[in-house]
């Protein structure tokens, strides 16, 4: 692979490639061609040549080395990116799949699979292409992609990735992605395409660099004429050396590498970038819309307490909650069942409930529960427990009475606002007071009701993610406003927001609110980042400038987003923002460095060219360089600074969480003042070495 880098870097010396991708380096290469020609075939009139051909050869070598260092840096960056992608790609390699055709398994190649096909994957086999589980429950080992060592459970409608391995049991999977068109391929395309789509900042920077180049060409070109008319020593090669030294070669050489490196570094974080634009927009992000659940909090709220309304007991609430959660497979639902079992609050009629109609949670209604009418009295009569058996709780009695009367039973749980619409004759003040108590303790109240009668509340508690407060603080220090969106009531939202140090919170939000918030912030000119995983997040993800979808999310969400996190960790958006900023900072810093470098070069090359012509040039030679070696020393510095900065270009400059104004001052001092002083010292050093050698 190392040879590949060398080969690539040499191939990139092709002037046609440079003409398309790197104008600054093209100019250096043209300079190289002229100097080399002068060295080998002295075609240029003698009055423009003052030195021996060995000098021109040395000059030519340094010039082509400058170009090669630049193409080398690009090749290294591409190599790194490809290595990462090649690795990700091995996970997508061709495998044999068992396609279901008319209920039978047919062995086909994974590349033949189309969306809509169903395949069966047994324990130990590789999932051929991205898809949704349509049958079965199994553990899937995703460590090769996500690095997460614990296998994860995949159930119906769970999303599975191509390249991951089924660890236990078997799954029937409906293919959702066409082979070769997965998001990984989009990322490969992004790195491999010879002419990467340039981002706006890149284009603007290129324009600036080209402008500077034009100015310096005009300057050196006219200097040639003026010096000639003034009767000064004019040497074409020396003027080319001056031009190359002045051209912004450092940033010009490293610009492509910086661009590619950004993508690689995202890849290392297990984030698939679908475009370079998204990464850069991340740097501009100044409003982050964050989902509370999963991003700020662990996302698995658990029941910790049952709080009864007046006239009811804790046991009543526990039994009702148990009943209402019996079909609820979410973490919340399971935790309610667990708490109720732990406390011994099992309601009567469990068998009937198990076959009862499920009222599924929907984002619009925001409640769930069960609904049943006990019609088949005869069959279940035997098992009906008596009031005495269940501890004579009010709820048990109520349920049994209703059952006897053959009346419909609806047990619902949901948020306070959703439930208030559903119930009658409730002491709203009491309910609100109790709900608020829960909210104030960072909990989420869940209201339990049986047939329009509120029984009590479940205290659901969601804990903040580890270190989330620190992460948020870091992000906020760079001037980003954080907005939390949650379906919780405003008290809970505010408590959590305060706990995590979030700027704004939008409580009791429905999914459409996310899109509304994104659009609202954008209309104020902000660059908005957001994370999402559900289909109803898709419009907002598409609208947001940086849309990070969770790999565990739905296909629609992933399609809409411009980045996908394979680890499905929403708080990674903070990572992406940092990375985007770093990429821009690196460009700015090296540009500043490149321009300030030029000051020293006037003091090294100009005196060497015109030393015999005017006393002023001896005075300009402030560093007392030897006129023999000054030009070579300068160009060596000019060339060598490129490979020396490759690590910086690839890794990006250090990012600290501080106000932009501070970052600005700090970087100005390092790269501005540093860029002014460093070449003076370095060129002097190289010159001392060279003079010793000569």
């Amino acid at each position, binding site marked *: 692979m190392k040879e590949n880098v060398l080969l690539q870097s040499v191939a990139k010396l092709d002037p046609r490639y440079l003409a398309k991708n790197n104008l600054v380096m093209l100019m250096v290469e043209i300079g190289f061609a002229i100097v080399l020609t002068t060295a080998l075939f002295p075609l240029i009139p003698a009055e423009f040549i003052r030195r021996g051909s060995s000098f021109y050869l040395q000059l030519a070598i340094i010039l082509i080395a400058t170009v090669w260092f630049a193409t080398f840096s690009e090749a290294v960056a591409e190599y790194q990116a490809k290595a990462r992608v090649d690795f990700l790609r091995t996970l997508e390699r061709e495998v044999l799949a068992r396609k279901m055709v008319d209920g039978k398994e047919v062995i086909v190649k994974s590349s033949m699979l189309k969306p809509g096909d169903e395949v069966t994957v047994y324990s130990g086999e590789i999932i051929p292409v991205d898809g949704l589980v349509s049958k079965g429950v199994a553990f899937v080992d995703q460590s090769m992609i996500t690095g997460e060592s614990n296998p994860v459970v995949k159930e119906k409608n769970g999303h599975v990735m191509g390249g991951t391995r089924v660890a236990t049991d078997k799954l029937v999977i409906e293919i959702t992605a066409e082979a070769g068109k997965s998001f990984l391929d989009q990322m490969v395309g992004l790195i491999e395409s010879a002419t990467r789509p340039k981002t706006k900042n890149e284009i603007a920077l290129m324009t600036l660099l080209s402008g500077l180049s034009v100015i310096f060409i*005009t300057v050196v070109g006219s200097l040639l004429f003026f010096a000639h008319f003034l009767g000064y020593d004019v040497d074409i090669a020396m003027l080319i050396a001056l031009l190359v030294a002045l051209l912004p070669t450092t940033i010009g050489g490293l610009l492509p590498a910086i661009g590619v490196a950004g993508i690689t570094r995202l890849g290392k974080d297990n984030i698939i970038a679908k475009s370079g634009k998204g990464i850069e927009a991340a740097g501009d992000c100044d409003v982050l819309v964050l989902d509370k659940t999963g991003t700020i909090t662990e996302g698995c709220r658990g029941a910790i307490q049952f709080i009864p309304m007046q006239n009811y007991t804790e046991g009543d609430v526990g039994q009702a909650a148990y009943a209402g959660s019996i079909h609820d497979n979410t973490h919340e639902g399971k935790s309610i069942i667990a708490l109720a079992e732990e406390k011994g609050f099992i309601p009567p009629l469990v068998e009937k409930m198990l076959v009862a109609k499920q009222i599924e949670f929907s984002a619009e209604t925001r409640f769930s529960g069960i609904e049943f009418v006990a019609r088949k009295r005869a069959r279940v009569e035997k098992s009906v427990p008596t009031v005495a058996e269940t501890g004579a709780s009010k709820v048990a009695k109520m349920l049994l009475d209703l059952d006897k009367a053959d009346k419909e039973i609806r047990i619902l749980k949901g948020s306070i606002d959703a439930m208030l619409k559903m119930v009658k004759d409730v002491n709203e003040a009491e309910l609100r007071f109790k709900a608020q108590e829960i909210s104030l303790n960072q909990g989420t109240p869940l209201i339990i009701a049986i047939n329009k009668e509120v029984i009590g509340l479940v205290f659901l508690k969601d804990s903040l993610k580890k270190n989330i407060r620190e992460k948020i603080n870091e992000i906020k220090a760079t001037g980003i406003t954080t907005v939390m969106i949650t379906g919780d009531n405003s008290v809970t939202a505010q408590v959590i927001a305060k706990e995590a140090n979030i700027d704004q919170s939008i409580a009791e939000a429905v999914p459409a609110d996310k899109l509304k918030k994104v659009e609202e912030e954008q209309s104020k000119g902000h660059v908005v980042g957001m994370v999402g995983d559900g289909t109803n997040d898709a419009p907002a993800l598409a609208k947001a400038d940086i849309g990070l979808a969770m790999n565990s999310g739905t296909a629609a969400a992933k399609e809409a987003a411009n980045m996908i996190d394979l680890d499905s960790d929403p708080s990674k958006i903070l990572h992406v923002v940092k990375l985007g900023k770093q990429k821009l900072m690196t460009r700015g810093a090296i540009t500043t460095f490149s321009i300030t470098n030029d000051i020293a070069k006037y003091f090294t090359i100009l005196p060497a060219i015109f030393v015999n012509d005017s006393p002023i040039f001896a005075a300009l030679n402030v560093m007392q360089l030897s006129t023999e070696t000054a030009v070579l020393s300068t160009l060596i510095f000019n060339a060598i600074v490129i490979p020396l900065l490759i690590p910086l270009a690839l890794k990006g400059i250090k990012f600290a969480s501080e106000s932009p104004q501070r970052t600005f001052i700090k970087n100005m001092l390092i790269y501005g003042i540093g860029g002014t002083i460093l070449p003076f010292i370095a060129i002097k050093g190289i010159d001392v070495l060279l003079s010793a050698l000569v």
Partner: protein
Amino acid sequence: MLIIVLLASTLSVSAILGLYIARMISYELQPLEKRLAKLERKLNKTLGLGAGHEMTWKEYFIALVLTNFIAAAFVFILLVLQGIMPFGKEGFSIDLAFSTAASLITNTDIQHYAGEQLSPFSQMLAITYVMFVAPASGICAAFAFIRAFIRKNFGLGNFYMDFARVILTLLLPIALISSVLFMALGVPQTLDASVTAKTLEGNEQIIATGPVASLESIKHLGSNGGGFFEANSAHPFENPNGLTNLYSMVLMLVIPLAFPIAYGRLLGRGRGVSILITLLLGFGALLVLALSAESGPSGLETRFGNFGSIIFNVVSISTNTGTVNAPLSAMSPNAISSLLLAMFIQAVPGADGTGIMYIVIYIILTLFIVGLMVGKTPEFMSMKISPRDIKLAVLIFIIHPILILVPSVIAFTTGNAQALIGNKITPLSFTKVFYEYTSAAANNGSDYFGVLANTPFWNNSTALVMLLGRYVPIALMLAIAGSFTVKERKEIVEPIKTQGAIFIITILVVTFLLTVLTFFPFLAIGPWSL
């Protein structure tokens, strides 16, 4: 002492004027102005003009060029036909008339003629009138430019309305008062072309004179610089004493320094003050450089001396007025370097109107270069700087060295330079040629050659450079304004503040750095080798 008096008097007038200009830009009317506006509407109605509609940047620019073209054509014809006009003097050659017309309309006023060659009729009608049109155009362009930043879709305004208002309510009143002041201070104002005096020996001497005072006021106020006499402000009729000298400087500085105040009034006081300080510091740096070596004494006017001459010349050239009270040949190499730097930068403080535009462009470019370092797409006052803005801004900075260097090279290679300065080319003669085109490209007007350069090559080449150096940057700047006026503005704190000490230092350093990097070799082979 002179500096303190100069700054104090200029800044106090600039402050008042700046607030007035801010109101002109934002169309805010005071009671008296309301009456004037009513009058304006009535006048417009009777002339059938209607109220001026909002112009796009292209319309604004075309209106500006059209107005300028008509005015320049008028001057051109008048000069060529001077011989058959009243108070007749010999008519100008076609190329000299072209050069003169271009020179006047571009606010340059390089004079390849001696002021004495003009009849009082041409002087008053052609010269003085165009000396209002040229700066008014620059000021209007700056109005449109600043409006782009006030708020989204504020509009750039209407050129004709701005133009009329600038001449009638800004330049004319000040010029009138100033003319009276100049007359009181001893500058002549007469329609006679000359007076005859008896010398001490009893001979008769004919001394050229004319409506000098009226020209002097607008010459300085409008960054023009074209002298009534060949000696320009060194001539005792144009600039008889210390007071006229001081007042001339005040007039040159007052509008360029009023603009940052207007800018501050409209876009944030801190920002305006910061720009003002930037301009003053930049100007101070130029002055220190110019004073760092003794100029003269030969060639200096004894009534002004070294200090008085240098400060006048630095004021004049840094405001792109271009009038001098001491010939360039008497200036030290350092002083010449300082004057050249002033013309390379064109923004500390620069000419009426264009000066503020140049500094804002410098700010945008600086913010782009260093702004990336904070990890965001660079912004100017919370507006994103797009690739197109950078392209336009970079073009503004490419065009300037090209307009200076390419014609200089051509002048040498075609032998036209040698025809003027002799075949032995020295650093001094190089400096003269280089200075000529620098002055033309910067629309400055000062030069070494004067009437010597009255040859077809020099007339035509400088005229072209002046026209390109004036209208191309204005077009590009208005295009930038057109782009910014429709931009979204954010309501948050700017990542890099566009005010305060750090900002001022950064702008100054980057401005001087970019300029010096571009022109360093030419300063070295030119003035530094003298």
